[in-house]
């Protein structure tokens, strides 16, 4: 079920009530949350509840075994087995078709009449997220950053916790599992943060992302050659705003919902389009994934400690695999490769301090990074590589009269950009003012916001973009 729906509202009210009414019985409360999370997941497709359980079960035991052995070699062997098992699950469901079809196409190119069988595999929702989360647990146990959990319920809850199950943020085991052994304090709930996160998330998803998608982006990307250069350009800007609003909305709502249940997730987006370099962009965009890739892939590969050439290779490889994580398609690999390439170039030319001083350079850098990211989004959004190339060709459609650039579409794009440049001090002042308002009045303000959002949002809710990963 999607967040901004009545089904989820009913589900959440029920789970919220059960969560806090069983606060004095931690084990019962955790079991309820696990059942709720499995129900939430099963609502998408009940067939994959078993997969989720098997993932949790196997990683629980991997953690136990790593804890049992003293010798580092044995620990390493179990770690390697667990990573292979997790990657096998991910690889089978997500990449089998892609690799087999690529292999078969190569056979055709060479005129060989041999091909591997293809299976019609359904992609389980959120598999990229929960397998990465599971790997994070085992690796953290191996590194000694957390102790192996003796409670299967804790591991099941960590991997399946419904706010972040299907589209992140990818919560680290060392950040979340310790929270499970502490009873949340009902006298100190991060209510204000939760409310602001949830309302802003709903606004970003239901208004900005949904309307940009239906009024502009989907139409132009479906048939770019039928639209003018201006529409093609605005559709790219529109998609940049759409994907930011869509994805950050999900993260915000997930974090807000977790707050209301007494748990804390780290933030996943930090105004990425105000970045002055690509390196900064990746410290602000999908922070949980980029930090996961840094800690579990880039650094183990050697990071920047094995010389310049190796650093560039490690950067490029990490981003290539990061692209592949998003989807089994050459488009995503190219998207990741472009980012990796430019990150390597940035590393070649610079310094770590990415905060420029001169205002003109700040503006030019920010615009440059934004436009590069938008160019990469074309590959991310286009269904096929050919589609991306056709889209790039469509920038030369000069003679066509634009019909999709309405004032409302422009306002949406501007809103999406302005969100990034609201000074942090202003946001803090607003939050502090809001906190001083009596709770009853807060409730009325929130009620009006919800009513407004509901009346302005389109009928039906498009799923979040990152569900497909």
């Amino acid at each position, binding site marked *: 079920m999607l967040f901004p729906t009545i089904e989820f509202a009913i589900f959440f009210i029920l789970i919220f009530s059960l969560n806090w009414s069983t606060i004095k019985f931690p084990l019962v409360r955790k079991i309820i949350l696990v059942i709720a999370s499995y129900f939430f997941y099963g609502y998408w497709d009940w067939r994959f509840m078993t997969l989720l359980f098997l993932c949790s079960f196997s990683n629980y035991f991997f953690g136990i075994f790593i804890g049992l052995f003293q010798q580092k070699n044995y620990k390493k062997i179990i770690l390697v087995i667990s990573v292979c098992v997790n990657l096998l699950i991910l690889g089978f469901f997500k990449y089998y078709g892609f690799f087999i079809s690529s292999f078969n196409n190569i056979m055709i190119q060479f005129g060989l009449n041999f091909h591997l069988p*293809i299976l019609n595999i359904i992609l389980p929702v959120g598999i990229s997220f929960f397998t990465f989360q599971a790997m994070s647990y085992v690796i953290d146990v191996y590194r000694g950053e957390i102790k192996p959990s003796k409670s299967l319920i804790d591991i099941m809850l960590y991997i399946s916790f419904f706010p972040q199950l299907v589209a992140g943020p990818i919560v680290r085991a060392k950040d979340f599992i310790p929270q499970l052994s502490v009873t949340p304090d009902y006298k100190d709930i991060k209510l204000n943060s939760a409310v602001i996160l949830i309302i802003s998330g709903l606004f970003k998803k239901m208004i900005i992302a949904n309307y940009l998608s239906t009024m502009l982006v989907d139409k132009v990307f479906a048939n770019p050659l039928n639209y003018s250069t201006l529409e093609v350009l605005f559709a790219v800007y529109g998609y940049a705003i759409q994907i930011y609003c869509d994805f950050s909305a999900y993260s915000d709502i997930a974090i807000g919902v977790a707050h209301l249940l007494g748990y804390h997730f780290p933030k996943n987006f930090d105004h990425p389009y105000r970045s002055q370099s690509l390196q900064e962009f990746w410290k602000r965009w999908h922070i949980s994934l980029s930090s996961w890739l840094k800690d579990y892939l880039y650094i183990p590969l050697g990071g920047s400690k094995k010389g310049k050439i190796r650093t560039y290779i490690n950067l490029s490889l990490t981003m290539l695999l990061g692209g592949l994580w998003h989807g089994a398609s050459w488009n995503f690999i190219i998207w990741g490769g472009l980012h990796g390439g430019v990150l390597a170039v940035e590393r070649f030319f610079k310094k770590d301090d990415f905060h420029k001083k001169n205002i003109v350079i700040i503006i030019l850098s920010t615009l440059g990074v934004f436009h590069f990211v938008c160019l990469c989004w074309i590959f991310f959004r286009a269904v096929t590589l050919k589609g991306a190339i056709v889209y790039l060709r469509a920038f030369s459609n000069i003679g066509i009269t634009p019909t999709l650039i309405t004032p409302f579409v422009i306002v949406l794009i501007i809103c999406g950009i302005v969100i990034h440049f609201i000074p942090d001090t202003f946001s803090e002042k607003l939050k502090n003012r809001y906190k001083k308002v009596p709770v009853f009045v807060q409730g009325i303000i929130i009620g009006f916001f919800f009513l407004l959002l509901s009346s302005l949002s389109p009928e039906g809710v498009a*799923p979040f973009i990152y569900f497909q990963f």
Partner: protein
Amino acid sequence: MKKNNLRDVVIILSILIVFSITFNTTSIYNWAFNQKIGGVRTFFLTIITPIKNITDSLYLSAPYSNSRAVFLRLTENKNNTSIENTVYDLTSDHEELFSIDRKLSILLLGDSMMKEAFSFMFKKSLVEEKSILTTTLASYASGLSRPDFFDWNDEVDNIFANKKFDTIVATLGMNDAQDIEYEGIKYFLNTEKWDSLYKNRARNFISKLSNNTDRIYWIGIPPMRDKRYDDRMRKINSLYMSVCNEFENVFFIDITPFVSYQNKYSDYLKINNKTVKVRLSDGKHLTNDGAKLITDFIVSLIKKDFKFEYTRTIFQEEMIDIIDY
């Protein structure tokens, strides 16, 4: 720093629920109404209907409805040329006058969508039309991906060998979102090679139709309830749209605006202040009411594109289906 406790959260949630029930009953009612027929739907409708009646009588839903109406009016894209206008812009080069003696012959061709709702509603709309004769060539579960199951090229070759049609109304694609096996190689859905192969098949098929008739109205695939299936259908739709654009006498009709709400799947639509069920419970096929929205439009196009001499007789002319699977 002030801390919020559980009581504060409960107060806010309670106010939110009261707000929703008081001012947003329409939205909750619509949600309950659109659920699958069963216990859950009945339960929620039983609770929400009397509340809606009360809030409506007190005009408490007015802020929601009015703000929505104003917003939709302000954000409407006035540049959008309606499909109707786009097709009307095409000048008919048909000089022939169709009449009872020289009927306009229409071939209704397609898969289950054509076999069920479309052909039924076409026949119903045209029952009074003495100058039009329809023939249905339709097969369940058919498409261009599996000629081993049903070979559309063979079928149209056979029918064109014996009969000429003035116009064709066609739809295919709903059953085609599957891997294609061709000359011993499997082409996988969502790959460029599949797209290219399917597009060629569509091109060859439509070319065959185009050479054997004066005008083709190709009906696109509507949005689907299942997201993944919907993505695949949109892709196939765009392939057909692209192929249809290659032929002067083939017109692709995007039916999404007819049977969706803001281009998204919807089981029900509000038409003339009445809620009409336009999709069947499978989330794919159209109901007769849903099909009627499209068939009425196409019939109006046909009447615009072809010239008719209207005479009335007291006798009903028979409409013959030659081939019906």
